[in-house]
Protein backbone atom coordinates (compact mmCIF):
# COMPACT_ATOMS: atom_id res chain seq x y z
CA UNK A 1 0.00 0.00 0.00
CA UNK A 2 1.37 3.40 -0.87
CA UNK A 3 1.23 6.21 1.59
CA UNK A 4 1.88 9.90 1.38
CA UNK A 5 3.93 11.75 3.98
CA UNK A 6 3.61 15.49 4.40
CA UNK A 7 6.49 17.42 5.96
CA UNK A 8 5.45 20.87 7.14
CA UNK A 9 8.34 23.11 8.03
CA UNK A 10 8.29 26.05 10.44
CA UNK A 11 11.00 28.47 11.41
CA UNK A 12 9.85 29.00 14.98
CA UNK A 13 9.09 26.57 17.78
CA UNK A 14 6.17 28.63 19.07
CA UNK A 15 4.54 28.82 15.61
CA UNK A 16 4.91 25.05 15.26
CA UNK A 17 3.34 24.50 18.66
CA UNK A 18 0.38 26.77 17.89
CA UNK A 19 0.01 25.10 14.49
CA UNK A 20 0.12 21.64 15.99
CA UNK A 21 -2.51 22.60 18.53
CA UNK A 22 -4.76 23.85 15.70
CA UNK A 23 -4.27 20.69 13.65
CA UNK A 24 -4.90 18.36 16.56
CA UNK A 25 -8.09 20.22 17.49
CA UNK A 26 -9.33 19.51 13.97
CA UNK A 27 -8.70 15.82 14.50
CA UNK A 28 -5.45 15.54 12.55
CA UNK A 29 -3.00 12.93 13.78
CA UNK A 30 0.57 14.24 13.84
CA UNK A 31 2.90 11.28 13.56
CA UNK A 32 6.19 13.03 14.34
CA UNK A 33 7.87 16.33 15.14
CA UNK A 34 11.54 16.96 14.34
CA UNK A 35 13.30 19.83 16.07
CA UNK A 36 16.84 21.03 16.83
CA UNK A 37 16.06 21.21 20.56
CA UNK A 38 13.35 20.09 22.94
CA UNK A 39 10.14 22.06 22.41
CA UNK A 40 8.64 22.22 25.87
CA UNK A 41 4.97 21.36 25.91
CA UNK A 42 4.80 19.66 22.51
CA UNK A 43 4.51 16.12 23.91
CA UNK A 44 0.93 16.29 25.28
CA UNK A 45 -0.25 18.09 22.13
CA UNK A 46 0.85 15.38 19.73
CA UNK A 47 0.08 12.59 22.16
CA UNK A 48 3.52 11.47 23.31
CA UNK A 49 3.54 9.76 26.66
CA UNK A 50 6.21 10.65 29.16
CA UNK A 51 9.20 8.30 29.06
CA UNK A 52 9.57 5.55 31.66
CA UNK A 53 13.36 5.78 31.63
CA UNK A 54 13.34 7.20 35.15
CA UNK A 55 11.76 4.00 36.47
CA UNK A 56 14.36 1.99 34.60
CA UNK A 57 17.15 4.02 36.22
CA UNK A 58 15.70 3.22 39.63
CA UNK A 59 15.58 -0.50 38.82
CA UNK A 60 19.17 -0.47 37.55
CA UNK A 61 20.16 1.32 40.72
CA UNK A 62 18.48 -1.35 42.84
CA UNK A 63 20.34 -4.00 40.84
CA UNK A 64 23.64 -2.25 41.59
CA UNK A 65 22.78 -1.96 45.27
CA UNK A 66 21.97 -5.65 45.48
CA UNK A 67 25.06 -6.74 43.56
CA UNK A 68 27.33 -4.59 45.71
CA UNK A 69 25.81 -5.90 48.94
CA UNK A 70 25.88 -9.53 47.91
CA UNK A 71 29.37 -9.16 46.42
CA UNK A 72 30.97 -7.52 49.42
CA UNK A 73 29.29 -9.89 51.81
CA UNK A 74 30.77 -12.78 49.86
CA UNK A 75 34.28 -11.31 49.43
CA UNK A 76 34.72 -9.87 52.90
CA UNK A 77 32.60 -12.05 55.19
CA UNK A 78 31.97 -15.49 53.68
CA UNK A 79 34.95 -16.21 51.49
CA UNK A 80 37.91 -14.54 53.18
CA UNK A 81 37.27 -12.58 56.39
CA UNK A 82 40.28 -10.42 57.26
CA UNK A 83 41.16 -9.46 60.80
CA UNK A 84 42.41 -5.88 60.50
CA UNK A 85 43.93 -4.64 63.73
CA UNK A 86 41.44 -6.58 65.87
CA UNK A 87 38.44 -5.44 63.84
CA UNK A 88 37.32 -8.72 62.33
CA UNK A 89 34.98 -9.02 59.38
CA UNK A 90 32.87 -11.87 60.67
CA UNK A 91 29.46 -10.29 60.16
CA UNK A 92 28.21 -7.99 57.45
CA UNK A 93 26.34 -5.69 59.83
CA UNK A 94 29.36 -4.97 62.03
CA UNK A 95 31.26 -3.88 58.95
CA UNK A 96 28.53 -2.12 57.04
CA UNK A 97 30.04 1.34 57.53
CA UNK A 98 33.12 0.37 55.57
CA UNK A 99 30.96 -0.94 52.76
CA UNK A 100 28.77 2.12 52.28
CA UNK A 101 31.07 4.10 49.95
CA UNK A 102 31.48 1.26 47.46
CA UNK A 103 27.77 0.35 47.70
CA UNK A 104 26.86 3.92 46.85
CA UNK A 105 29.33 4.17 43.98
CA UNK A 106 28.25 0.88 42.48
CA UNK A 107 24.56 1.82 42.72
CA UNK A 108 25.22 5.05 40.85
CA UNK A 109 27.41 3.25 38.33
CA UNK A 110 24.71 0.73 37.46
CA UNK A 111 21.87 3.28 37.44
CA UNK A 112 23.71 5.75 35.21
CA UNK A 113 25.10 3.27 32.71
CA UNK A 114 21.98 1.12 32.62
CA UNK A 115 19.87 4.16 31.92
CA UNK A 116 22.26 5.54 29.29
CA UNK A 117 22.39 2.23 27.43
CA UNK A 118 18.60 1.85 27.54
CA UNK A 119 18.25 5.41 26.30
CA UNK A 120 20.51 4.78 23.32
CA UNK A 121 18.76 1.52 22.45
CA UNK A 122 15.24 2.91 22.76
CA UNK A 123 16.15 5.95 20.65
CA UNK A 124 17.85 3.67 18.14
CA UNK A 125 20.87 5.93 18.34
CA UNK A 126 24.00 3.83 18.13
CA UNK A 127 27.34 4.28 16.34
CA UNK A 128 26.82 3.95 12.59
CA UNK A 129 23.04 4.34 12.61
CA UNK A 130 21.70 6.42 9.70
CA UNK A 131 20.11 9.80 10.42
CA UNK A 132 16.37 9.95 9.79
CA UNK A 133 15.52 13.62 9.99
CA UNK A 134 13.69 14.63 6.77
CA UNK A 135 15.71 17.80 6.26
CA UNK A 136 19.25 18.64 7.40
CA UNK A 137 18.02 22.03 8.62
CA UNK A 138 15.99 20.41 11.42
CA UNK A 139 19.17 20.16 13.47
CA UNK A 140 19.86 23.85 12.92
CA UNK A 141 16.92 26.26 13.09
CA UNK A 142 13.92 24.61 11.38
CA UNK A 143 11.08 22.61 12.92
CA UNK A 144 9.14 19.96 11.02
CA UNK A 145 5.76 18.30 11.54
CA UNK A 146 5.26 14.94 9.87
CA UNK A 147 1.72 13.88 8.89
CA UNK A 148 0.84 10.59 7.22
CA UNK A 149 -2.23 10.50 4.99
CA UNK A 150 -2.95 6.89 5.86
CA UNK A 151 -3.34 7.83 9.52
CA UNK A 152 -5.87 10.57 8.75
CA UNK A 153 -9.33 10.43 7.28
CA UNK A 154 -9.25 14.01 5.99
CA UNK A 155 -8.81 14.53 2.26
CA UNK A 156 -5.50 15.90 1.07
CA UNK A 157 -7.00 19.10 -0.34
CA UNK A 158 -8.79 19.89 2.92
CA UNK A 159 -5.63 19.19 4.84
CA UNK A 160 -3.69 21.59 2.61
CA UNK A 161 -6.19 24.33 3.34
CA UNK A 162 -5.90 23.69 7.05
CA UNK A 163 -2.10 23.69 6.92
CA UNK A 164 -2.11 27.04 5.11
CA UNK A 165 -3.53 28.61 8.25
CA UNK A 166 -0.64 27.43 10.45
CA UNK A 167 2.01 29.71 8.99
CA UNK A 168 4.51 27.18 7.69
CA UNK A 169 7.43 28.19 5.51
CA UNK A 170 7.85 25.07 3.37
CA UNK A 171 5.75 22.05 2.50
CA UNK A 172 7.12 18.82 1.17
CA UNK A 173 5.17 15.71 0.14
CA UNK A 174 6.62 12.29 -0.44
CA UNK A 175 5.07 9.08 -1.68
CA UNK A 176 6.34 6.04 0.13
CA UNK A 177 5.70 2.38 -0.51
Amino acid sequence: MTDKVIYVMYDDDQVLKDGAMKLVSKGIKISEVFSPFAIHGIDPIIGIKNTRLGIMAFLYGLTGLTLATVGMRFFMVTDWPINVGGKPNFTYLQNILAFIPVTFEFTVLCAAHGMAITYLLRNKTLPGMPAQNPDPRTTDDKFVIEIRLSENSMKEADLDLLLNETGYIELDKKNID
Partner: protein
Amino acid sequence: MQKEAVIREPLILGHKTYHDITEDVCRPIEDKAPKMWYILFGIALIIGLYGVGCILYLLGTGVGVWGLNKTIGWAWDITNFVWWVGIGHAGTLISAVLLLFRQKWRMAINRSAEAMTIFAVFMAGLFPLIHMGRLWVGYWVLPLPNQFGSLWVNFNSPLLWDVFAISTYLSVSVVFWYIGLIPDFATIRDRAKKPLSKKMYSILSFGWSGRAKNWNRFEMVSLVLAGLATPLVFSVHSIVSFDFATSIVPGWHTTIFPPYFVAGAVFSGFAMVQTLLLIMRKAMSLEAYIHTKHIEYMNIVIMVTGSIVGTAYITELFISWYSGVEYEAYAFLNRATGPYWWAYWSMMTCNVLSPQLMWFRKLRRSLLFTFFISIIVNIGMWFERYVIIVTSLHRDYLPSAWSMHYPSHIDIGVYIGTIGLFFVFFLLFARFFPVLALNEVKTILKGSGQSYKESPDYHKHH
Protein backbone atom coordinates in the same frame (compact mmCIF):
# COMPACT_ATOMS: atom_id res chain seq x y z
CA MET B 1 8.78 29.44 27.44
CA GLN B 2 10.16 30.65 30.72
CA LYS B 3 10.39 34.37 31.29
CA GLU B 4 12.75 36.08 33.68
CA ALA B 5 13.01 39.51 35.28
CA VAL B 6 14.07 42.29 32.93
CA ILE B 7 16.70 43.54 35.34
CA ARG B 8 18.56 40.25 35.03
CA GLU B 9 21.39 40.63 32.58
CA PRO B 10 20.68 38.70 29.36
CA LEU B 11 22.69 35.51 29.00
CA ILE B 12 23.05 35.80 25.23
CA LEU B 13 24.24 39.18 24.03
CA GLY B 14 23.51 40.75 20.67
CA HIS B 15 20.76 40.00 18.19
CA LYS B 16 21.18 36.29 17.69
CA THR B 17 18.86 33.90 15.91
CA TYR B 18 18.81 30.11 16.23
CA HIS B 19 20.85 29.91 13.05
CA ASP B 20 23.44 32.38 14.37
CA ILE B 21 24.03 30.14 17.37
CA THR B 22 24.67 27.17 15.09
CA GLU B 23 26.98 29.29 12.92
CA ASP B 24 28.95 30.73 15.83
CA VAL B 25 29.64 27.37 17.41
CA CYS B 26 30.22 25.34 14.25
CA ARG B 27 32.36 27.80 12.32
CA PRO B 28 35.56 27.27 14.33
CA ILE B 29 35.18 23.52 13.74
CA GLU B 30 34.59 23.86 10.02
CA ASP B 31 37.19 26.53 9.30
CA LYS B 32 40.90 25.89 9.17
CA ALA B 33 42.53 25.98 12.57
CA PRO B 34 44.30 29.27 13.28
CA LYS B 35 48.08 29.33 13.44
CA MET B 36 47.93 29.93 17.19
CA TRP B 37 46.16 26.59 17.64
CA TYR B 38 49.02 24.75 15.97
CA ILE B 39 51.60 26.61 18.06
CA LEU B 40 49.80 25.86 21.33
CA PHE B 41 49.16 22.28 20.31
CA GLY B 42 52.83 21.84 19.41
CA ILE B 43 54.01 23.20 22.76
CA ALA B 44 51.49 21.10 24.71
CA LEU B 45 52.43 17.99 22.74
CA ILE B 46 56.16 18.42 23.37
CA ILE B 47 55.57 18.91 27.11
CA GLY B 48 53.15 15.98 27.13
CA LEU B 49 55.60 13.71 25.33
CA TYR B 50 58.33 14.67 27.79
CA GLY B 51 55.95 13.56 30.54
CA VAL B 52 55.28 10.28 28.74
CA GLY B 53 59.05 9.79 28.48
CA CYS B 54 59.43 10.34 32.22
CA ILE B 55 56.60 7.88 32.91
CA LEU B 56 58.21 5.24 30.68
CA TYR B 57 61.54 5.74 32.43
CA LEU B 58 59.78 5.43 35.78
CA LEU B 59 58.02 2.24 34.76
CA GLY B 60 61.26 0.79 33.41
CA THR B 61 63.32 1.67 36.46
CA GLY B 62 60.85 1.69 39.37
CA VAL B 63 59.26 4.29 41.61
CA GLY B 64 62.64 4.80 43.26
CA VAL B 65 63.29 7.46 40.63
CA TRP B 66 60.90 9.72 42.52
CA GLY B 67 62.34 11.81 45.31
CA LEU B 68 60.59 9.78 48.02
CA ASN B 69 62.34 8.45 51.11
CA LYS B 70 61.57 6.25 54.09
CA THR B 71 59.81 9.02 56.00
CA ILE B 72 58.07 10.74 53.11
CA GLY B 73 56.52 7.86 51.21
CA TRP B 74 53.91 9.98 49.51
CA ALA B 75 54.65 13.36 47.99
CA TRP B 76 54.24 14.78 44.49
CA ASP B 77 52.47 11.70 43.15
CA ILE B 78 49.45 11.94 45.43
CA THR B 79 49.63 15.74 45.53
CA ASN B 80 49.21 15.77 41.77
CA PHE B 81 46.52 13.10 41.95
CA VAL B 82 44.41 15.08 44.43
CA TRP B 83 45.09 18.32 42.56
CA TRP B 84 43.83 16.90 39.28
CA VAL B 85 40.81 15.18 40.82
CA GLY B 86 39.94 18.46 42.50
CA ILE B 87 40.14 20.32 39.20
CA GLY B 88 37.97 17.61 37.73
CA HIS B 89 35.13 18.58 40.05
CA ALA B 90 33.89 21.70 38.33
CA GLY B 91 32.52 20.16 35.14
CA THR B 92 30.06 17.77 36.65
CA LEU B 93 29.17 20.25 39.35
CA ILE B 94 28.30 22.82 36.68
CA SER B 95 26.31 20.41 34.56
CA ALA B 96 24.63 18.40 37.32
CA VAL B 97 24.19 20.60 40.38
CA LEU B 98 23.43 23.72 38.38
CA LEU B 99 20.95 21.77 36.25
CA LEU B 100 19.06 20.73 39.36
CA PHE B 101 19.09 24.35 40.53
CA ARG B 102 17.81 25.43 37.08
CA GLN B 103 20.72 27.80 36.56
CA LYS B 104 20.54 28.67 32.90
CA TRP B 105 23.94 30.28 32.71
CA ARG B 106 25.45 26.82 32.99
CA MET B 107 24.47 26.06 29.39
CA ALA B 108 27.18 28.24 27.89
CA ILE B 109 29.95 26.68 29.92
CA ASN B 110 28.93 23.14 30.81
CA ARG B 111 30.27 21.43 27.68
CA SER B 112 33.83 22.72 27.96
CA ALA B 113 33.80 22.41 31.75
CA GLU B 114 32.80 18.76 31.45
CA ALA B 115 35.49 18.13 28.85
CA MET B 116 37.97 19.75 31.21
CA THR B 117 36.70 17.49 34.00
CA ILE B 118 37.14 14.35 31.99
CA PHE B 119 40.68 15.21 30.90
CA ALA B 120 41.60 16.25 34.44
CA VAL B 121 40.34 12.94 35.84
CA PHE B 122 42.37 11.11 33.16
CA MET B 123 45.46 12.88 34.45
CA ALA B 124 44.51 12.14 38.05
CA GLY B 125 43.96 8.46 37.33
CA LEU B 126 47.43 8.22 35.85
CA PHE B 127 49.15 8.83 39.21
CA PRO B 128 47.82 5.90 41.25
CA LEU B 129 48.40 3.68 38.22
CA ILE B 130 52.05 4.63 37.76
CA HIS B 131 52.55 4.63 41.50
CA MET B 132 51.90 0.89 41.35
CA GLY B 133 55.21 0.68 39.53
CA ARG B 134 53.91 -2.33 37.65
CA LEU B 135 51.23 -0.77 35.51
CA TRP B 136 50.40 -4.03 33.81
CA VAL B 137 48.97 -5.51 37.01
CA GLY B 138 46.76 -2.48 37.56
CA TYR B 139 43.67 -4.66 37.14
CA TRP B 140 44.50 -6.24 40.52
CA VAL B 141 42.53 -3.42 42.13
CA LEU B 142 39.35 -5.04 40.83
CA PRO B 143 37.63 -7.83 42.75
CA LEU B 144 38.30 -10.50 40.14
CA PRO B 145 38.38 -14.26 40.74
CA ASN B 146 42.04 -15.17 40.82
CA GLN B 147 44.54 -17.97 41.24
CA PHE B 148 45.95 -16.68 44.57
CA GLY B 149 43.54 -18.72 46.69
CA SER B 150 40.56 -16.42 46.12
CA LEU B 151 42.35 -13.42 47.58
CA TRP B 152 40.01 -10.45 47.28
CA VAL B 153 40.75 -6.75 47.39
CA ASN B 154 40.19 -5.07 50.74
CA PHE B 155 36.83 -3.32 50.78
CA ASN B 156 37.67 -1.79 54.16
CA SER B 157 40.37 0.35 52.61
CA PRO B 158 39.70 3.93 51.49
CA LEU B 159 42.25 3.41 48.72
CA LEU B 160 39.93 0.80 47.23
CA TRP B 161 36.93 3.07 47.72
CA ASP B 162 38.90 5.58 45.69
CA VAL B 163 39.22 3.09 42.83
CA PHE B 164 35.45 2.71 42.72
CA ALA B 165 34.77 6.42 43.24
CA ILE B 166 37.16 7.69 40.59
CA SER B 167 36.22 5.11 37.98
CA THR B 168 32.49 5.66 38.57
CA TYR B 169 32.96 9.40 38.43
CA LEU B 170 35.00 9.24 35.25
CA SER B 171 32.70 6.88 33.39
CA VAL B 172 29.48 8.61 34.48
CA SER B 173 30.94 12.00 33.54
CA VAL B 174 31.90 10.68 30.10
CA VAL B 175 28.40 9.30 29.55
CA PHE B 176 26.71 12.49 30.75
CA TRP B 177 28.95 14.56 28.48
CA TYR B 178 28.48 12.35 25.46
CA ILE B 179 24.70 12.14 25.70
CA GLY B 180 24.63 15.93 25.59
CA LEU B 181 27.03 15.93 22.64
CA ILE B 182 24.97 13.62 20.40
CA PRO B 183 22.41 16.24 19.20
CA ASP B 184 25.19 18.77 18.64
CA PHE B 185 27.21 16.29 16.61
CA ALA B 186 24.06 15.79 14.53
CA THR B 187 24.00 19.53 13.81
CA ILE B 188 27.60 19.43 12.59
CA ARG B 189 26.87 16.27 10.59
CA ASP B 190 23.97 17.93 8.78
CA ARG B 191 26.11 20.94 7.90
CA ALA B 192 29.27 19.08 6.92
CA LYS B 193 30.30 19.36 3.29
CA LYS B 194 33.48 17.30 3.14
CA PRO B 195 32.74 13.57 2.89
CA LEU B 196 35.27 12.60 5.52
CA SER B 197 33.95 14.95 8.18
CA LYS B 198 30.37 14.03 7.26
CA LYS B 199 31.25 10.36 7.80
CA MET B 200 33.05 11.07 11.08
CA TYR B 201 30.29 13.20 12.55
CA SER B 202 27.56 10.82 11.45
CA ILE B 203 29.30 8.04 13.35
CA LEU B 204 29.74 10.32 16.36
CA SER B 205 26.12 11.51 16.27
CA PHE B 206 24.78 7.92 16.43
CA GLY B 207 22.09 8.76 13.83
CA TRP B 208 20.36 11.32 16.01
CA SER B 209 17.21 12.66 14.29
CA GLY B 210 15.65 14.98 16.87
CA ARG B 211 12.23 13.35 17.10
CA ALA B 212 9.88 14.65 19.79
CA LYS B 213 10.10 11.35 21.66
CA ASN B 214 13.90 11.45 21.49
CA TRP B 215 13.87 14.88 23.11
CA ASN B 216 11.42 13.71 25.75
CA ARG B 217 13.82 10.91 26.68
CA PHE B 218 16.81 13.23 26.40
CA GLU B 219 15.40 15.57 29.01
CA MET B 220 14.60 12.71 31.37
CA VAL B 221 18.08 11.21 30.99
CA SER B 222 19.72 14.59 31.62
CA LEU B 223 17.65 15.15 34.72
CA VAL B 224 18.18 11.69 36.23
CA LEU B 225 21.89 11.66 35.38
CA ALA B 226 22.16 15.07 37.04
CA GLY B 227 20.40 13.66 40.09
CA LEU B 228 22.81 10.74 40.17
CA ALA B 229 25.90 12.80 39.45
CA THR B 230 25.23 15.37 42.16
CA PRO B 231 25.86 13.08 45.16
CA LEU B 232 28.60 11.48 43.10
CA VAL B 233 30.51 14.78 42.84
CA PHE B 234 30.38 15.19 46.60
CA SER B 235 31.21 11.56 47.31
CA VAL B 236 34.30 11.45 45.12
CA HIS B 237 36.30 14.09 46.89
CA SER B 238 34.98 12.96 50.27
CA ILE B 239 36.42 9.55 49.50
CA VAL B 240 39.69 11.08 48.31
CA SER B 241 39.87 12.85 51.67
CA PHE B 242 39.28 9.53 53.48
CA ASP B 243 42.65 8.39 52.08
CA PHE B 244 44.08 10.75 54.69
CA ALA B 245 41.31 11.19 57.24
CA THR B 246 41.04 7.50 58.12
CA SER B 247 44.76 7.26 58.87
CA ILE B 248 46.22 8.10 62.26
CA VAL B 249 48.89 10.51 61.07
CA PRO B 250 48.63 13.85 62.96
CA GLY B 251 47.58 16.46 60.41
CA TRP B 252 45.62 13.92 58.40
CA HIS B 253 43.35 12.40 61.01
CA THR B 254 40.72 15.12 60.79
CA THR B 255 36.95 14.81 60.59
CA ILE B 256 36.65 18.13 58.76
CA PHE B 257 38.40 16.71 55.70
CA PRO B 258 35.44 15.62 53.53
CA PRO B 259 33.56 18.96 53.33
CA TYR B 260 36.83 20.85 53.26
CA PHE B 261 38.17 18.78 50.36
CA VAL B 262 34.93 19.07 48.40
CA ALA B 263 34.87 22.85 48.77
CA GLY B 264 38.53 23.01 47.78
CA ALA B 265 37.87 20.84 44.75
CA VAL B 266 35.04 23.05 43.51
CA PHE B 267 37.23 26.06 44.22
CA SER B 268 40.13 24.84 42.11
CA GLY B 269 37.86 23.36 39.43
CA PHE B 270 36.10 26.65 38.83
CA ALA B 271 39.45 28.42 38.73
CA MET B 272 40.61 26.06 35.97
CA VAL B 273 37.35 26.61 34.08
CA GLN B 274 37.97 30.36 34.26
CA THR B 275 41.54 29.98 33.00
CA LEU B 276 40.42 27.93 30.01
CA LEU B 277 37.21 29.78 29.16
CA LEU B 278 38.73 33.25 29.27
CA ILE B 279 41.13 32.17 26.52
CA MET B 280 38.62 30.06 24.62
CA ARG B 281 35.86 32.68 24.38
CA LYS B 282 38.36 35.10 22.86
CA ALA B 283 40.05 32.62 20.51
CA MET B 284 36.74 31.25 19.24
CA SER B 285 34.78 34.55 19.31
CA LEU B 286 32.17 33.30 21.75
CA GLU B 287 31.99 36.56 23.69
CA ALA B 288 28.23 36.82 23.11
CA TYR B 289 27.60 33.55 24.97
CA ILE B 290 30.27 33.56 27.66
CA HIS B 291 30.43 37.10 28.90
CA THR B 292 31.11 39.12 32.03
CA LYS B 293 27.99 37.87 33.80
CA HIS B 294 29.04 34.23 33.43
CA ILE B 295 32.52 35.08 34.68
CA GLU B 296 30.98 36.94 37.60
CA TYR B 297 28.78 33.99 38.56
CA MET B 298 31.78 31.70 38.54
CA ASN B 299 33.80 34.19 40.57
CA ILE B 300 31.06 34.17 43.18
CA VAL B 301 31.32 30.38 43.40
CA ILE B 302 35.10 30.76 43.75
CA MET B 303 34.63 33.31 46.50
CA VAL B 304 32.16 31.19 48.45
CA THR B 305 34.13 27.95 48.19
CA GLY B 306 37.35 29.86 48.90
CA SER B 307 35.77 31.14 52.10
CA ILE B 308 34.73 27.63 53.10
CA VAL B 309 38.31 26.47 52.53
CA GLY B 310 39.63 29.40 54.56
CA THR B 311 37.26 28.62 57.41
CA ALA B 312 38.39 25.00 57.32
CA TYR B 313 42.08 25.99 57.55
CA ILE B 314 41.43 28.14 60.58
CA THR B 315 39.17 25.54 62.23
CA GLU B 316 41.89 22.94 61.76
CA LEU B 317 44.43 25.20 63.35
CA PHE B 318 42.17 26.01 66.28
CA ILE B 319 41.17 22.40 66.89
CA SER B 320 44.77 21.23 66.85
CA TRP B 321 45.44 23.54 69.80
CA TYR B 322 42.06 23.01 71.51
CA SER B 323 42.35 19.22 71.32
CA GLY B 324 45.22 19.30 73.78
CA VAL B 325 46.98 16.57 71.84
CA GLU B 326 50.58 17.70 71.60
CA TYR B 327 51.36 15.70 68.45
CA GLU B 328 48.36 17.20 66.71
CA ALA B 329 49.30 20.70 67.87
CA TYR B 330 52.88 20.19 66.75
CA ALA B 331 51.84 19.05 63.27
CA PHE B 332 50.06 22.34 62.66
CA LEU B 333 52.60 24.54 64.40
CA ASN B 334 55.28 22.89 62.30
CA ARG B 335 53.28 23.54 59.14
CA ALA B 336 53.08 27.24 59.78
CA THR B 337 56.52 27.84 61.28
CA GLY B 338 58.63 24.79 60.40
CA PRO B 339 60.88 24.26 57.39
CA TYR B 340 57.87 24.22 55.06
CA TRP B 341 56.51 27.59 56.25
CA TRP B 342 56.86 28.98 52.73
CA ALA B 343 54.51 26.35 51.31
CA TYR B 344 51.99 26.96 54.10
CA TRP B 345 51.97 30.70 53.68
CA SER B 346 51.80 30.45 49.86
CA MET B 347 48.74 28.28 50.35
CA MET B 348 47.20 30.75 52.82
CA THR B 349 47.83 33.75 50.57
CA CYS B 350 46.60 32.10 47.38
CA ASN B 351 43.57 30.32 48.80
CA VAL B 352 42.34 32.43 51.68
CA LEU B 353 43.26 36.01 50.84
CA SER B 354 42.99 36.14 47.06
CA PRO B 355 39.36 34.95 46.68
CA GLN B 356 38.24 37.54 49.24
CA LEU B 357 39.06 40.22 46.66
CA MET B 358 36.05 38.96 44.72
CA TRP B 359 33.80 40.82 47.14
CA PHE B 360 34.53 43.88 45.01
CA ARG B 361 32.14 43.96 42.07
CA LYS B 362 34.66 45.76 39.89
CA LEU B 363 37.27 43.08 40.47
CA ARG B 364 35.01 40.08 39.99
CA ARG B 365 33.78 41.54 36.70
CA SER B 366 37.29 42.24 35.45
CA LEU B 367 38.40 39.57 33.01
CA LEU B 368 42.11 40.24 33.39
CA PHE B 369 41.92 40.11 37.17
CA THR B 370 39.85 36.92 37.03
CA PHE B 371 42.44 35.27 34.81
CA PHE B 372 45.21 36.25 37.20
CA ILE B 373 43.31 35.00 40.28
CA SER B 374 42.32 31.75 38.58
CA ILE B 375 45.99 30.88 38.13
CA ILE B 376 46.85 31.98 41.66
CA VAL B 377 44.07 29.75 43.03
CA ASN B 378 45.36 26.70 41.22
CA ILE B 379 48.89 27.32 42.45
CA GLY B 380 47.46 27.70 45.95
CA MET B 381 45.46 24.49 45.70
CA TRP B 382 48.53 22.55 44.63
CA PHE B 383 50.36 23.88 47.67
CA GLU B 384 47.41 22.93 49.90
CA ARG B 385 47.79 19.28 48.99
CA TYR B 386 51.57 19.49 49.23
CA VAL B 387 51.32 21.04 52.69
CA ILE B 388 48.82 18.44 53.93
CA ILE B 389 50.79 15.52 52.57
CA VAL B 390 54.45 16.40 52.94
CA THR B 391 54.47 18.50 56.11
CA SER B 392 52.41 15.91 57.97
CA LEU B 393 54.81 13.15 57.02
CA HIS B 394 58.19 14.81 57.19
CA ARG B 395 58.36 15.05 60.98
CA ASP B 396 56.85 11.97 62.61
CA TYR B 397 57.09 10.68 66.19
CA LEU B 398 60.77 9.73 65.85
CA PRO B 399 63.06 12.77 65.44
CA SER B 400 65.83 10.54 64.08
CA ALA B 401 63.56 9.78 61.12
CA TRP B 402 62.79 13.40 60.36
CA SER B 403 63.47 14.27 56.78
CA MET B 404 62.84 16.70 53.94
CA HIS B 405 61.37 16.03 50.52
CA TYR B 406 63.23 17.09 47.40
CA PRO B 407 61.54 16.29 44.10
CA SER B 408 63.62 14.53 41.47
CA HIS B 409 63.53 15.67 37.86
CA ILE B 410 61.20 12.72 37.17
CA ASP B 411 58.75 14.03 39.77
CA ILE B 412 58.76 17.38 38.02
CA GLY B 413 58.70 15.86 34.52
CA VAL B 414 55.68 13.67 35.21
CA TYR B 415 53.77 16.56 36.74
CA ILE B 416 54.58 19.06 33.99
CA GLY B 417 53.90 16.30 31.46
CA THR B 418 50.36 15.79 32.72
CA ILE B 419 49.71 19.52 32.28
CA GLY B 420 50.94 19.17 28.69
CA LEU B 421 48.77 16.12 28.03
CA PHE B 422 45.77 17.86 29.57
CA PHE B 423 46.17 20.74 27.12
CA VAL B 424 46.70 18.35 24.21
CA PHE B 425 43.31 16.79 24.98
CA PHE B 426 41.63 20.11 25.58
CA LEU B 427 42.95 21.64 22.36
CA LEU B 428 41.79 18.62 20.37
CA PHE B 429 38.38 18.98 21.99
CA ALA B 430 38.20 22.68 21.13
CA ARG B 431 39.17 21.93 17.53
CA PHE B 432 36.79 19.08 16.72
CA PHE B 433 33.94 19.17 19.23
CA PRO B 434 31.18 21.75 19.70
CA VAL B 435 32.54 23.69 22.68
CA LEU B 436 29.11 25.05 23.56
CA ALA B 437 25.97 23.00 24.09
CA LEU B 438 24.57 24.81 21.07
CA ASN B 439 21.18 23.15 20.93
CA GLU B 440 20.63 23.65 24.64
CA VAL B 441 21.64 27.29 24.36
CA LYS B 442 18.91 27.73 21.74
CA THR B 443 16.30 26.85 24.38
CA ILE B 444 17.25 29.90 26.48
CA LEU B 445 17.48 32.32 23.55
CA LYS B 446 13.90 33.55 23.85
CA GLY B 447 13.96 33.69 27.63
CA SER B 448 17.41 35.19 28.17
CA GLY B 449 18.56 36.58 24.80
CA GLN B 450 19.28 40.29 24.71
CA SER B 451 17.18 41.13 21.65
CA TYR B 452 14.19 39.22 23.03
CA LYS B 453 14.46 40.77 26.46
CA GLU B 454 14.64 44.24 24.97
CA SER B 455 11.63 43.78 22.70
CA PRO B 456 8.35 45.35 23.89
CA ASP B 457 6.54 42.00 23.51
CA TYR B 458 8.75 40.25 26.05
CA HIS B 459 6.29 40.56 28.89
CA LYS B 460 3.17 39.84 26.94
CA HIS B 461 1.76 36.38 27.11
CA HIS B 462 2.00 34.36 23.91
